[in-house]
């Protein structure tokens, strides 16, 4: 018996020793002097969740080299120990049985294995042959280092600005909204606003399903006895509506009229915040054509422009009753009440996306509901590092790291200097934005399609691009076009790929993400990637090295060294392109790349925290500034003197990156304009697309988690029951949806998750077997270039029975 006890004690102490050793090694980057135990036990470590932009921290429990458990991290300020159902099951994303484990090349239409070295050579040779025809397409799921090396390879190495993240499809309008209002990107407020606000307004946003942890952070305040008013402004009833005090349903696109109507009332009723406006704001409007910074206008001009949007006039455009519009006007006109606005894709995926973003900032500024905890316009992001990588590292066709742009000479010079490159290396002309990039790739070379090689990392454009027939499927049969896809599972994108590279995922590598509230979050590699899967950052560096070996000039810096020249702490150059040495005990490459990038973040006061500080924390919100005692302090409320160290003493609020160079934020006027496509006789229904709680974006990861798949096994068309009855459609019947661009057959669901008003339907886009993006529109916002997935015209009818049978694919073996 005593033997049993001792065994247990031994197990317990050895599990603890294992944990100590592992943590010690990770924290200090060197092999621990502690004895290495033979026995395994669960070792826990921290990581930001792999899914959305909320940036929850999870605790990852690893046993015998595999993830066995996930728990919410109580120490994380974002989620305080809570997760959503995706987060609790995030460990499963690594273990789908069809994980890609070796590089594959298409030969005679079939994907066949190829060695890593040959795969890298194939890509390098294509780039060397036509460097201008190469484009790099990544995402807001790139870690900071992955985005950074892609950015440096393209803009610093190849003088080629054709690099884009899928974030163009996601938050580009939020970016242009922030820049044109404050002169710098990203929210001034943070999630602390959710704990302090009295009223929260969701603008075309369904956080109950899409940002559930933040939504719970809000509504759980009610369980604690606090008062919180929730106003849901939307085009369909959702789970968020279920918790709302007021549901304000508007006609698609009329959000612009509603925002203008609030401004009209603030001025007409003389309830705008005169002191705030006089001290901190200027006025601005779009000349023709629309531009990012527009032109200044006077307050009188502004007053005249919004005067038209009376509640009565707005009611006609928006379908919102006058009483509800007046309620909103009165609310914003009330001092003392704290109002937080939240939005996500409803405002961003909009042909007037920049305009509606500007207007929502504008009504907060005009009414002075700005800059104190609880009073904030806050955009939510959908990807874990849309902010950290796409926006901050600037992996967009016009951007450079740290808020810089290629069009500005001083910005280019700074980057060339930082990267030790010859002057003039960076191309001043912005590259192709996402829609143009894919259009050029899918157009035959002879007809002007001048992108011939496209490298896709960490995203699934074959499913997520709009108007797929035109922007993706048209690639099929174009023999001189070459699509390289780094992926973890077979997807709609690997379907047409010519070369597939198996990627490591999440805690199979070191990484850093940046979430929606400017929080930079770090994690360590915890498990080995399967088979021959490798890091995306390594792939980019290996391609660069191959080009360097081939003598491509751009792969050398001014001193003739390799573009990704990294030195160990004792000054020796490190072979970062050598996979066998990529992970090692003495040199953390992720840390080295991040620290190189960190030097570029201070100009726009986006000072990210040192790597070693991130290791100790559950993320820190920039600007992170060192205090006199040597400690590092994060910033919660930007531009507000009480919290932002960059605001001068006595200024109260200072927009120190103001586009009018006078520390003022811009209040924009943007008129309501009709959308490019509206329902008509042939296509009488509005189609809105979006997400569901259980699946993340294109479902590549979540469709491989049984619990999530069983809850939401396939997509559907959500209809109003009255429309369904008129079309003789019952629940589960197959409907045929047609737009000018494509058609699809989907089962009907009403009385389920949400209810759209009559004449409109909603379809989630997560299902790779039922691609709703065959139907969507690729018209985009003229400023942000972000397409509108939320509004296009379709027709619906009951699918003929024989057609309905055809849509059912054979069950997957």
């Amino acid at each position: 018996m005593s033997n049993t006890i001792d065994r247990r004690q031994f197990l317990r102490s050895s599990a603890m020793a294992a944990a100590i050793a592992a943590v010690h090694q990770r924290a200090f980057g060197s092999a621990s002097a502690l004895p290495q135990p033979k026995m395994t036990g669960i070792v826990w470590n921290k990581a930001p969740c792999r899914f959305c932009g909320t940036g929850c921290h999870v605790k990852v429990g690893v046993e015998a080299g595999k993830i066995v458990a996930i728990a919410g991290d109580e120490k994380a300020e974002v989620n305080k120990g809570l997760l959503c159902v995706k987060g609790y099951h995030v460990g499963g994303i690594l273990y789908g049985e069809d994980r890609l484990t070796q590089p594959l090349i298409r030969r005679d239409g079939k994907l066949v294995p190829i060695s890593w070295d040959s795969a890298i050579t194939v890509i390098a040779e294509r780039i060397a042959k036509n460097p201008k025809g190469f484009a790099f397409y990544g995402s807001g799921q790139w870690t900071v280092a992955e985005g950074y090396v892609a950015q440096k390879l393209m803009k610093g190495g190849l003088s080629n600005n054709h690099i884009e993240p899928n974030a163009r499809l996601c938050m580009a309008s939020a970016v242009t909204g922030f820049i044109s209002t404050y002169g710098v990107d990203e929210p001034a407020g943070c999630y602390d606003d959710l704990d302090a606000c009295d009223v929260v307004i969701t603008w075309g946003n369904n956080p109950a399903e899409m940002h559930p942890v933040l939504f719970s952070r809000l509504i759980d305040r009610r369980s604690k006895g606090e008062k919180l008013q929730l106003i849901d402004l939307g085009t369909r009833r959702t789970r968020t509506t279920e918790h709302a005090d007021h549901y304000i349903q508007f006609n698609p696109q009329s959000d612009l009229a509603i925002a203008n109507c609030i401004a009209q009332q603030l001025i007409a009723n003389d309830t705008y915040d005169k002191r705030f406006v006089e001290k901190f704001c200027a006025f601005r409007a779009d000349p023709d054509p629309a531009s990012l910074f527009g032109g200044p206008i006077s307050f009188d001009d502004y007053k005249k422009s919004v005067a038209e949007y009376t509640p009565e006039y707005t009611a006609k455009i928006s379908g919102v009753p006058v009483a509800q519009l007046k309620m909103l006007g009165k609310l914003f006109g009330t001092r003392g009440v704290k109002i937080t606005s939240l939005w996500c894709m409803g405002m961003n995926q909009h042909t007037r996306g920049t305009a509606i973003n500007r207007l929502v900032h504008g009504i907060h500024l005009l009414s002075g509901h700005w800059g104190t905890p609880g009073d904030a316009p806050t955009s939510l992001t959908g990807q874990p590092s849309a902010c950290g990588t796409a926006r901050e590292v600037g992996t967009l066709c016009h951007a450079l790291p740290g808020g810089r742009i290629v069009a500005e000479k001083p910005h280019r010079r700074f980057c060339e200097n930082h990267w030790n490159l010859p002057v003039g290396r960076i191309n001043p002309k912005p590259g192709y934005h996402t829609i143009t990039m894919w259009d050029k790739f899918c157009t035959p070379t002879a007809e002007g399609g001048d992108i011939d090689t496209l490298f896709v990392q960490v995203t699934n454009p074959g499913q997520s691009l709009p108007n797929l027939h035109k922007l993706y499927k048209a690639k099929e049969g174009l023999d001189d076009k070459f699509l390289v896809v780094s992926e973890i599972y077979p997807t709609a994108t690997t379907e047409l790929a010519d070369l597939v590279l198996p990627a490591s995922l999440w805690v199979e590598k070191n990484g850093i993400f940046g979430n929606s509230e400017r929080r930079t979050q770090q994690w360590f590699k915890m498990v080995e990637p399967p088979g021959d899967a490798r890091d995306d950052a390594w792939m980019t560096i290996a391609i660069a090295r191959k080009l360097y070996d081939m003598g491509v000039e751009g792969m050398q810096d001014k001193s003739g060294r390799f573009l990704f020249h990294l030195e160990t702490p004792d000054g020796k150059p490190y072979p970062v392109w050598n996979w066998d040495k990529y992970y090692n005990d003495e040199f953390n490459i992720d840390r080295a790349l991040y620290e190189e990038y960190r030097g570029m973040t201070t100009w726009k006061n986006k000072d990210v925290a040192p790597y070693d500080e991130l290791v100790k924390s559950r993320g820190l919100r920039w600007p992170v500034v060192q205090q006199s005692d040597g400690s590092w302090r994060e910033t919660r409320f930007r531009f507000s003197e009480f919290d932002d160290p960059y605001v001068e003493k006595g200024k109260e609020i200072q927009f120190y990156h103001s586009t009018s160079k006078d520390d003022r934020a811009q209040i924009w006027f943007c008129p309501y304009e009709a959308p490019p496509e509206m329902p008509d006789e042939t296509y009488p229904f509005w189609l809105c697309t979006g997400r569901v709680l259980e699946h993340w974006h294109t479902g590549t990861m979540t469709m491989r988690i049984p619990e999530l798949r069983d809850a939401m096994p396939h997509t559907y068309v959500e209809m109003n029951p009255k429309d369904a009855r008129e079309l003789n459609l019952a629940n589960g019947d197959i409907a045929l949806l047609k737009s000018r661009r494509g058609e699809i057959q989907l089962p009907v669901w009403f009385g389920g998750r949400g209810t759209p008003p009559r004449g409109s339907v909603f379809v989630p886009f997560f299902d790779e077997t039922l691609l709703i993006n065959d139907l969507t529109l690729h018209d985009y916002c003229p400023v942000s270039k972000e397409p509108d997935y939320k509004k296009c015209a379709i027709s619906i009818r009951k699918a003929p029975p024989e057609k309905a049978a055809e849509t059912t694919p054979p069950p997957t073996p």
Partner: protein
Amino acid sequence: MLPKDVENYFDTHRRSTAIALAILLVTVISGFFMGMGQTRNFSDQTRDLRDRQSTSAENQPPSGKIPTAIGYGDLATATFRPNTNWSSSLNDLATADESYLPVAAMTKNERRAAILARESLRAFDGAPPVVPHPIDQISSSSCMNCHSATGPQPVIAGRTPARMSHTFLSNCTQCHVASSGHGEGVTDWKLGLGSIETRFAGLSIAAAGDRAYPEAPPVIPHTIRMRENCYSCHGSGRVNALTTSHPERQNCTQCHAISAAKEGRDFDLLRLRKPVRFPIDLNPPPPPASDPTPEPDTKGNPKP
């Protein structure tokens, strides 16, 4: 008695037999018509049913006329009410009888069945369980009706709903999703990507809690975050659950300690600690040469 005697008996009592038959005939005929009448007036609610009569006003049928039948498509938004004998109020259902009397300890097989039942609803120990029944996709209040922390608990099909431990959380479907797709009539399991096998092997909940010595109270072998109400799963009267043998003792953590290792609590403080030697570990006998390490089970857990 001989048959002749019987004949004689009826001969002598002919009159009274006729009266008896006449009474029978009248009863049968009137009974037939009464039965017909009762069938016709079924909705008059005169029968004495087993279920308690619903008293709430909202359950009364609309007076005057029979409600018009509606199409299936309108069921979700229908405003009609069932007749009064239909018990649609949870408060009218029989409720669980929660006993606090000591009961016999569970057998090994009962324990095994209970653990398997629990595992079938969870990806790993600590994962939020999926919902094994259809759900209302939009409203959390329908969940709370049965799973509330307090109040009577209805018995439905012989089962008692789990009481929720985390009453401060009100967005149930954030973490608990249905295991049966969209719900009645919509899910077509032939659509979608189909089932791709997962190689994820989650932390098992099969391991029993460690005991410091043979009769010691076992340590709780799982995290108690979000499941602080032990009675929700371990209370008496639960079907397929690890129920306590001593429900009369209500302060569970008085004796059953929580395991920090299972919860990963304070894992980043571990590096500050020195390796611990347990005081009980004074004279460990050398392990037998043939079996240097304890044999792990299939999931790598030490054998209990």
